[in-house]
């Protein structure tokens, strides 16, 4: 256990640790998970020393375990992050943020002429390239990429 980082970001009894988040997306991860509105302890650390990255971010969320959909959201902005489920201060599960093959509901299509931006329709995408993050809209067939990705409010 890396005691140095534990000094910066305290341990939690029960909940989830999202570790190895690139520094530039830490607050975006918190945002897409809706943690601004989460009514329990959330600990955010950024620019911490790590071995995997030169500097990294970490988010600890007390008394919360993420759903599959929430994990896919994390994977899209921080594909290298690890998700650690904690119970009674012990690590019970370690997951990688894995980009799914299909994504529904939470991403906006980048095409302003797409029907999903004009009617109340849940978006659907096929992930055609995980490495470069390229999503094909099920409706308009246009590609949304890392550069154009936006999350539904």
């Amino acid at each position: 256990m890396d005691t140095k980082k534990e000094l910066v970001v305290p341990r939690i009894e029960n909940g989830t640790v999202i570790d190895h988040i690139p520094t530039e997306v830490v607050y975006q991860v918190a945002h897409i998970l809706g943690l601004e509105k989460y009514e329990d302890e959330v600990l955010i650390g950024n620019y911490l020393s790590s071995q995997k990255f030169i500097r990294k971010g970490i988010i600890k969320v007390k008394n919360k375990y993420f759903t599959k959909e929430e994990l896919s959201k994390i994977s899209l902005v921080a594909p290298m992050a690890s998700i650690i489920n904690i119970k009674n201060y012990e690590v019970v599960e370690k997951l990688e943020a894995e980009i799914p093959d299909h994504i529904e509901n939470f991403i906006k299509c980048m095409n302003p002429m797409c029907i999903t931006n004009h009617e109340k329709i849940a978006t659907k995408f096929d992930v055609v390239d995980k490495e470069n993050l390229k999503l094909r809209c099920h409706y308009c067939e246009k590609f949304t990429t890392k550069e154009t990705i936006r999350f539904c409010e």
Partner: protein
Amino acid sequence: MSTLKGRNLISITDFSKDEYIEVLDIAEEFEKNPKQKILSDKVVATLFFEPSTRTRLSFESAANQLGARIIGFSDPGGTSVQKGESLHDTIVMVSSYADLIVMRNPKEGSSRYASEVSTVPVINAGDGANQHPTQCMLDLYSIRKTQGRLDNLNIACVGDLKYGRTVHSLVQAMCNFNATFHLVSPQELKLPSSVKMSVKNAGLKYYQYTDIKDVIPVADIIYMTRVQRERFPDPLEYERVKDSCILTASMLKGCKDNMRVLHPLPRVNEITVDVDKTPYAYYFRQAQNGVYVRQALMAAILGVR
């Protein structure tokens, strides 16, 4: 019974190669005998959320000749759509009145969505810049009709290859038939890399040119499209390149005897009128073929072929 019964046609990739061929075979039958009252107990809805007289008349003529009754609108003015009704509600309502919906809508992906909401099959008659699959099917029909086959042809595509969705669909469809592609366009309007990828992934070849003269001796089909002035940020650039994608009768001297010129129409000046009288002009017949192909699609989808 055909695998096409009850199916939607939204995107050209919705049908397999065998299914394309099946539609073309049925269309050939309707070309010989277009007036058959086989849909006299059917109602076809044509919902045009933007006007497109050419496409709508072709569908309605096709449905009429098969005896179907037609309901719908030719533009949304004065309908509940204009009063703000959602596409969802319009489609749910119409699918209780009709056996088949033909829809054109400027929003991309609207036809796919309609097909998910509708209880009856939907044919996409154009969803903005996305897909217009019946145009592609009539292009395939015209190619087969004029060449006697679809396989191993040299297909030249000329003009705006970047924004021209008919070209994208045609190239993708012809990837099923071992075509070689000759792509003529101004630098600014080259075929998108995603479409070129489809050609490469099919193990086929494409060649790029900037002057139409270079493809005339090799082409079996010259598929012309319009180059629009608005596509050029610099008007001088348009002036410089506009003639490189114009076909005139005198240019056709060295072409193959079997070569035919296609164009999705309407044309502006990219094919000069002196081409019309040559044996190579096929674009007006091509438009007429649209009726047979649409008859074939409606008959197959409604399960009477």
